[in-house]
């Protein structure tokens, strides 16, 4: 997928000006997935859920600490059960592997269940160019495929669309009469997709987890499309990041409890599909050929570094559901595959710090994300870490560096600081005038007064008044 993460600011501005999007985001903010999670956690018990988060973090840390061994074990077990395990160092290689599989098996049409890695790899575009028709079958993904847009959320890819917009897309692409009720719209999508499921040669899925001890992949879905993608076509390819490997089914059962509650507030998703090798003798259904493609694409660069905790991520979306910035500008502003707090860490990590300068700063560090993360990733700390790396690599603008240096110098020299603040408060109080409000601040302060007034200071510093009071 094309990297647009350099343009967060302008894309965020477009999002703020888009009235329809703002309406959709407003609804998402008040009644969306965050609320469902809150209810599910309350029902589960707050203290119990905290223990589940601790357990989830420990499982993920254990997996990552021995990732190489887990991957080898996964490969051994998957191969033993008849699957082919392939490795790709980046999205391009993963894409080429899928195209090669398409050629080998004479594939004309592929049905896909949600895979964020296939977005990283730009897989759909490459398949189309190679004459293979990719059809997204997750309802949200299907909608945005029709709209020719990337996902704006990792589990609710079309959350930025209203039902009216979906309805218009269906009229345009299906040539059917206009519908307004959601059940009618989903029925229509099901009818269209059913034909694709039955005529596709290849199923492409992601994997929420890969289980080393059994060589299985697991996907968690609500629509049942994932199960059809992984069982109906004669070839199945599961493509995912190497960090998704965990040790055991026991580990999986623990992570599943927190994953679905964190994502959609469900105790368990409607479907939990586990795939272990191709159809065996005596099996009634399943693909004839089963491939796993494990993709690095930047993961190993984080292993063993101060950013490793990010690899714990199980892709629930809770961080973005609770993020004030995401809830205000939506996912497209972030400019690449992953939005919200996890995206603001993954994008610079995977596409380069210098290609996503705004993202680590596009957060208030409110830590709403950190407290809901089911695997306790300290997201604000990692964002701060990236800010530090930007400073260390000299990637911040000169004006900011200079300002910071001046502030730090003054703050370490109390007399200078006292003089500077004494002058500043008088000047600002003067600007505030009678109503004690500043409508336009000069210099960098103009960022503040674009959308707010600046309440003027009282006119003397505490330091001055305290000295007077002491006499």
């Amino acid at each position, binding site marked *: 997928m094309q990297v647009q993460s350099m343009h967060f600011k302008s894309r965020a501005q477009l999002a703020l000006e888009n009235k329809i999007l703002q309406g959709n985001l407003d609804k998402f903010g008040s009644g969306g997935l965050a609320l469902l999670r809150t209810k599910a956690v309350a029902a589960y018990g707050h203290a119990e859920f905290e223990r589940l988060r601790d357990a989830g973090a420990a499982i993920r840390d254990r997996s990552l600490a021995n990732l190489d061994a887990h991957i080898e074990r996964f490969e051994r077990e998957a191969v033993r059960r008849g699957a082919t395990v392939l490795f790709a160092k980046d999205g391009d290689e993963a894409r080429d592997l899928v195209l090669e599989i398409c050629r080998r098996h004479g594939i004309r049409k592929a049905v896909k269940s949600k895979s964020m890695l296939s977005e990283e790899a730009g897989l759909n575009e490459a398949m189309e160019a190679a004459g293979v028709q990719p059809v997204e079958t997750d309802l949200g993904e299907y909608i945005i495929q029709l709209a020719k847009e990337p996902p704006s959320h990792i589990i609710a890819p079309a959350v930025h669309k209203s039902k009216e917009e979906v309805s218009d897309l269906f009229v345009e692409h299906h040539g059917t009469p206009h519908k307004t009720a959601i059940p009618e719209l989903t029925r229509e999508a099901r009818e269209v997709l059913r034909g694709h499921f039955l005529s596709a040669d290849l199923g492409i899925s992601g994997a929420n987890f890969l289980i080393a001890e059994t060589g299985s992949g697991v996907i968690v879905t609500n629509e049942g499309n994932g199960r059809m993608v992984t069982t109906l076509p004669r070839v199945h390819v599961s493509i995912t990041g190497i960090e998704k490997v965990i040790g055991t089914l026991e580990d999986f059962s623990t992570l599943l409890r927190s994953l679905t509650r964190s994502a959609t507030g469900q105790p368990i998703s409607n479907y939990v599909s586990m795939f272990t090798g191709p159809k065996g003798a005596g099996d009634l259904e399943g693909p004839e050929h089963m491939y796993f493609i494990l993709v690095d694409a930047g993961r190993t660069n984080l292993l063993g570094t101060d950013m490793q905790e990010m690899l714990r991520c199980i892709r629930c979306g809770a961080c973005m559901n609770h993020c004030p910035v995401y809830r205000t500008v939506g996912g497209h502003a972030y400019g690449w595959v992953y939005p919200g707090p996890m995206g603001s860490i993954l994008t610079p990590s995977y596409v380069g710090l210098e290609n996503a300068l705004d993202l680590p700063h596009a957060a208030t560090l409110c830590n709403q994300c950190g407290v809901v993360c089911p695997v306790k990733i300290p997201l604000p700390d990692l964002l701060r870490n990236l800010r530090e790396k930007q400073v260390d690599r000299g990637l911040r603008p000169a004006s900011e560096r200079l300002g910071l240096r001046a502030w730090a110098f003054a703050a370490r020299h109390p007399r200078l600081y006292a003089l500077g603040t004494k002058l500043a408060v008088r000047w600002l109080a003067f600007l505030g005038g009678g109503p004690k409000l500043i409508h336009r601040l000069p210099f960098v302060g103009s960022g503040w007064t674009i959308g707010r007034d600046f*309440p003027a200071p009282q006119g003397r510093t*505490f330091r001055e008044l305290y000295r007077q009071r002491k006499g």
Partner: protein
Amino acid sequence: MRVGLLVTCLVDLMRPSVGFAALELLEAAGCEVVVPETQTCCGQPGWNSGDRAATRALAEKVLEEFEDCDYVVAPSGSCSGMIRTHYPALVENEPVLRDRVAALCAKTHELTDFLVNVVKLQEVPGSFAGTVTYHDCCAGLREMGVKAQPRALLARIPGVEFAELNECEQCCGFGGTFSIKFGEVSAAIADRKCRNIEATGADAVVLGDLGCMLNIEGRLRRRGNTTTRVLHVAEVLAGKVE
């Protein structure tokens, strides 16, 4: 009990009255209050901008200024949270400083937390007639566990009617330098906060951090709301509201 008042740079600059309100509340609670005059800033702007070296230098300065106090109290969840939650990371590889910082962290409190949980203030001097609502500032809530304390104290003021705020734990969009770097986004987040505040019909929104205060007040006024007051909890508790 010797209590060091960490005034905070924003109170020093913008709202000295909040500092004096905190001072009076601590004195009313029987504390001997010291105000180190060389104090400037806890270092948070540098920390959140990725300047570790400058932040570490300021942390050491704060440590020297306050470590001989029995307690350190700030009328801010954000600045007290900076000390307690983030200072340890700055000195993690320096054994001597690490222990001194750990001791400082253990005695650092946000004002209302200190009043409720340490000195167990019974009589609240303030008076206020009207309905108030409360915005939970992020760092106070999530770093310092400030939630029930300000509500409990406000409930002891006769005449205060309390109306709970929808989405009270949601960030107001301030975020330090975020509010300037991403002014439009920040103001849009603040706008949602303001709509929720207005929906309570409260006469005042009370909160415990200057950054959020300036942000919310600034957005309310820009929206044309000239009546809803934005008050620091210390001012209300100390009876410093005109």
